[in-house]
């Protein structure tokens, strides 16, 4: 069963609609990142899931039970959701130990549970300290332990790493992921940091214009983005135009298999398509399907980028990434290129489809 099931969520503040019909399903035990620019409603979504705000419309289900819709509202106290806010937000008047034990029953507060949790986040020796005596990363980990103390079914992390400096961020991130995986807790992380979203999560939900525009595993997002804009967001791109021929697409640099046609509604022969080719799909080889001239090369050690011009009439510029960076072709030399694997394409809306 899914842990969290959100459908048709709408929330506005005054006249500004922040979420407009958002749907999201989170499976039990998974780690989902919600990725969106600042102001895209990420925090609002989290606050509605936690029960701090009520949705204007739509519904939120936890374990199949409705916690927020037109007629029902379950208070945050009864949702069993661990919330780890942006700045940690530890109770300033309580020690680390008391912060972690806050949600426990009185008898348990001095028991082994608190020590275990502190142990888990690696802060067992700081139990008696007060929040202001801790570093940012330590505060963040205490906040996590506090959220986990109540054995939550779901943990919400609201940009928990954004206030940490770069060096600390990587290690705290790593720790948090392991702690959550070990505990088997479902987690939702909100972030505007692409690397963070991709590296931590089992699935990434991309938030755009108050909706989830795609929710998939990081590799799928990269390989099969739902829109050209998403493709650009998740890495470097080459876009070429082509014409559909059955389950293949004919382009200036060759004919390629379409990997997934669900992104092309109403696909028919002769339709104009916009084709995505990732730089690492382009292979420089002796027996390629097309010829191209090398415009420039950029050497990065572990790999290199070769800037190419294919098909001189159309001035088509391509970027190829090659891990074989030792003997790069000379500038202005001619090479043969081929494309590895299938490609993703969309209907090309920039031009009139009926021209061809």
């Amino acid at each position: 069963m899914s842990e969290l099931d959100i459908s048709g969520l709408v929330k506005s503040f005054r006249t500004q609609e922040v979420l407009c019909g958002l749907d999201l399903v989170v499976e039990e035990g998974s780690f989902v990142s919600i990725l969106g620019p600042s102001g895209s409603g990420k925090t609002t979504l989290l606050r509605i899931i936690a029960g701090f705000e009520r949705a204007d419309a739509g519904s939120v289900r936890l374990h199949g039970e409705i916690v927020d819709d037109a007629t029902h509202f379950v208070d945050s106290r009864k949702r069993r959701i661990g919330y780890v806010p942006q700045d940690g937000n530890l109770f300033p008047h309580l020690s680390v130990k008391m912060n972690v034990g806050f949600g426990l029953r009185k008898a348990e507060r001095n028991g082994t549970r608190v020590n275990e949790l502190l142990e888990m986040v690696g802060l067992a020796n700081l139990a008696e300290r007060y929040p202001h005596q801790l570093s940012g990363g330590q505060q963040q980990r205490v906040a996590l332990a506090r959220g986990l103390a109540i054995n939550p079914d779901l943990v919400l992390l609201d940009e928990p790493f954004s206030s940490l400096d770069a060096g600390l961020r990587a290690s705290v991130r790593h720790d948090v992921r392991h702690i959550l995986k070990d505990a088997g807790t479902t987690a939702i992380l909100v972030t505007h940091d692409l690397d963070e979203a991709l590296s931590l999560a089992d699935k990434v939900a991309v938030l755009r214009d108050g909706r989830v525009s795609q929710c998939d595993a990081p590799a799928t997002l990269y390989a099969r983005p739902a829109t050209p804009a998403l493709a650009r967001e998740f890495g470097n791109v080459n876009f070429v135009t082509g014409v559909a021929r059955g389950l293949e697409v004919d382009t200036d640099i060759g004919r390629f298999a379409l990997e997934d046609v669900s992104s092309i509604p109403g696909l028919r022969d002769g339709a104009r398509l916009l084709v995505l080719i990732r730089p690492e799909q382009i292979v420089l080889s002796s027996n390629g399907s097309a010829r191209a001239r090398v415009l420039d090369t950029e050497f990065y050690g572990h790999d290199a980028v070769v800037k190419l011009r294919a098909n001189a009439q159309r001035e088509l510029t391509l970027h190829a990434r090659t891990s074989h960076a030792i003997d790069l072709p000379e500038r202005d030399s001619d090479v043969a290129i081929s494309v590895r694997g299938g490609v993703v394409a969309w209907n090309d809306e920039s031009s009139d489809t009926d021209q061809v």
Partner: protein
Amino acid sequence: MTTTESRVEALGWAPRRRRPRPRALVLFSAIVIAALSLPLVFLLLEASDAGAATVWHLIWRSLTATLLWNTVRLTVVVTILCAIIGTLSAYCVERTDLPGRHVWAVLVVIPFAMPDFVVSFGWSSLFSWISGFRGAVVVMTWAVYPLVYLPVAASFRGADTGQEEIARSLGASRLGVFFRITLAQARRSILGGCLLVSLVILAEYGAFEILGYRTFTTEIFSEFSVGFDTSSACALSLVIVIISIAVMIGEGAMGGARTSRSGRGVAPVRTPVTLGRWRIPILGLFSALVLAALGVPIGSAVYWMFQGGADAISGVSLGSAAFYTALYSAGAALLATLMALPVALLVVRYPTKWTRALTRSTFLLLAMPGLVIALALSYFSEQHADSFGYQTAAMLILAYALMFFPLALVGVRASVSQAPITLEEVAGSLGVSRRQVLRRVTLPLISPGLAAAFCLVFLSCVTELTATLILIPTGVQTLATQFWAYQQNLSYGQAAPFALVIILIAAVPAYLLGRFFDRLPHRALAAPVPNVVA
């Protein structure tokens, strides 16, 4: 499909969904608001008993015109003077390299602890020209300017100095920056302080009685004490209510614009403005201010005490009066703080237009003469409770709590809005009940604000006179009533020790208050009166 339905719902076809408000909070607030409305209900009942014609006749006299002129011009002049003194002193303390600023920060607040009747006694017993309008202006200005100083200082401390630096870099002069940026940022606080000042002046009795200056409040008191003429007193009180509503509407209209701070809550780094050659003159002005507001009343009391000779002091009555004063004041301070707590929580945590308007309207109580509040409580106990509680300590304490509720609200509200709501939300998400969150998170966080509210009400009660005169339990004297009795008999030597003890008792909480507000980090107090528009 679901989406379309939801959107239709969001557009207002379906009733708006709300997070339920905690019922206990709403209930307690409703009880408090009901209690606070008693004086106004009393006035309206009395007025309707007397009949519209009578009330109209009572108001439409030449006397009303005189009182109106006296009250309005005094209020206007004192408010303007307080705005200038309060704002400039706050600017010097918060923004310049004034030597000893932490000492001044406390010294300029303490005059608020001076009972107005002691201040006026001090001035008028030393200088014969201090009387009438001139005297009232001098005395009231010294006594109430801290009401402007406190919020404005808080706003200067929290405001963004970056704007000033930018203005200066754009070529604005120092004075230009002060008027165009600094004052604009503090505008709401200044207006809020001015509102408190105007309301307090409307309700003032003792000082004007000593100075022989007639306002609505003194007239209400004499009409009542001479002829027990309740309907006349009530008619005049209604005029006060109308004036204060006008003042509040005016303040609301002028304070409409809001200052905003760009960027997140990073503590601004600021370099204090260098006073340079102005340093000595400004130190002189500060000394003069403290001398006028503190030195004269204390000095005159000491002078009269020695004039009266040592035998004038009766240790026993002084001790018992001090005891009862402290007892009643502490009780009232506790009650008012407890009353302010649910209201502040409701208006800060669940703000709506209505709760804001309702909270704001409680400030009317500041302008109500103590006499009216005393009469209202006696009326309700007589009419509806079989004279239960009349002239008991409980009723006096309730009267005090009603009178000074707005001041308690200022303090509690400031610190509730200071306590981050996220902490309460986190606590709630950890499965802790609302009452537990209040006890384990909110109260510890806002305890300094509760203490400040307690101090504010305590010192106001210590210096309260009119309601005390009416409601004091038989056979008991407080410092204020005893001082008043001696002062009325012109026994200045015997009155003086009581004045000194009042000052002593009130100065302690005033000192604590000065310290508290000096350390309040952000802009919590910058808008003392909630604005309906905001």
